[in-house]
């Protein structure tokens, strides 16, 4: 199993000048990630897939993260988990970060390298609003086409569709209080509920 530092060295040797760095993972799993710049992502991905010693031919998972510290616009991130069926090693974590989200969230698509990224990049586009440039068919996949907004983003504002909760608590209780009708007797003349 190649370590992230080893991969970093291999990539720097093969692709000099590629914007790539190791993101340490402090957890016991120590699965350090490789943060790759958007300009070099496809070249790095092709190297990881085609290098005879690495042969990371299986993209198992793509997911998105919204990094939004309080008071800052923050940025979005796409994370790719790679394995090698041929060599029997993995996972390798490949990460790409967008610029500040106010400048638009754009990343290069890795679907031309790993076909299995197609639906998962569509899902990230659907829920996080990251536009994958070079994706062959970038449409919403889980939400309907008419849906507005990106619901997994931290700045997504849920529509105010509160109706009724039998036992509201915590944040739902706050919403319930905001929707309390004024206390007046019900139209049938009975006593209002306690």
């Amino acid at each position, binding site marked *: 199993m190649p370590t992230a530092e080893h991969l970093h060295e291999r990539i720097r040797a093969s692709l000099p000048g590629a914007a790539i760095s190791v993101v340490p993972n402090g957890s016991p799993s120590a699965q350090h990630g490789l943060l790759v710049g958007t300009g070099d992502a496809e070249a790095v991905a092709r190297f990881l897939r085609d290098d005879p010693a690495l042969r990371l031919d299986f993209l198992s998972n793509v997911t998105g993260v919204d990094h939004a510290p309080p008071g800052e616009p923050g940025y979005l991130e796409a994370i790719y988990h790679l394995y090698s069926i041929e060599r029997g090693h993995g996972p390798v974590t490949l990460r790409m970060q967008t610029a500040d989200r106010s400048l638009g969230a754009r990343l290069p698509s890795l679907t031309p390298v790993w076909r299995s990224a197609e639906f998962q990049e569509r899902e990230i586009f659907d829920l996080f609003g990251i536009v994958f440039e070079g994706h062959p068919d970038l449409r919403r996949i889980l939400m309907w086409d008419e849906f507005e907004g990106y619901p997994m983003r931290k700045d997504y504002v849920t529509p105010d569709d509160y109706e009724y*909760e039998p036992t509201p608590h915590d944040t739902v209780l706050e919403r319930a209080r905001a929707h309390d009708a004024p206390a007046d007797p019900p139209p049938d003349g009975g006593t209002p509920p306690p």
Partner: protein
Amino acid sequence: MALNPPSPMIDERLQDELRKQGVFVTSFQELHNWGRKNSLWPLQFGLACCAIEMIATTMARYDLARFGAEVFRPSPRQADLMIVAGTVTKKMAPQIVRLFNQMPEPKYVIAMGACAISGGPFKEGYNVLKGIDRFLPVDVSIPGCPPRPEALLHALITLQEKIAAETLTGPGRPPHADASAPASYPVPEFGAADLVPPHNPAVFQPPRIVRREK
């Protein structure tokens, strides 16, 4: 809810006595309801984990076939019963309503599980319908997450009792015997954040919240 059978045309004890003597006396309504309640064919579809319990109910251990409801049909044209087993997403809801519209009368709906009856744990989610009763006339609701197969059997028996208590004429007759009942239910459209309309006012009104000042 107590499900009382309709008032018999002849005295019930006399009918029992005659049956003991080999004389079978019945009414068309009773025969009609008896035949229908024992051959409910559900529409074969499942939406989430409740569907696994529904599948278990049809298998040998719980054996839905004992109640004549084992013939799951892959086409709505051949189905009498829609078992909404699982979370109904907003994206799926129009298809559910459309399938129900395609089922011929008489037809019934069982809402199975917390999600199907109210949205369940996902009620505040961005893509979860807060209960299929917003768009369809639900006959039996089963709480549970997921309900056990026995609960689905109980729901089926409850529905059978409801069918046995139907009257073919007069007020309170079921929709298939009532020409003024709606022939189909409006299919909601997709909006910017929710379905349009978010519920069918003819079948569902959200509860009005009244709280007394403390």
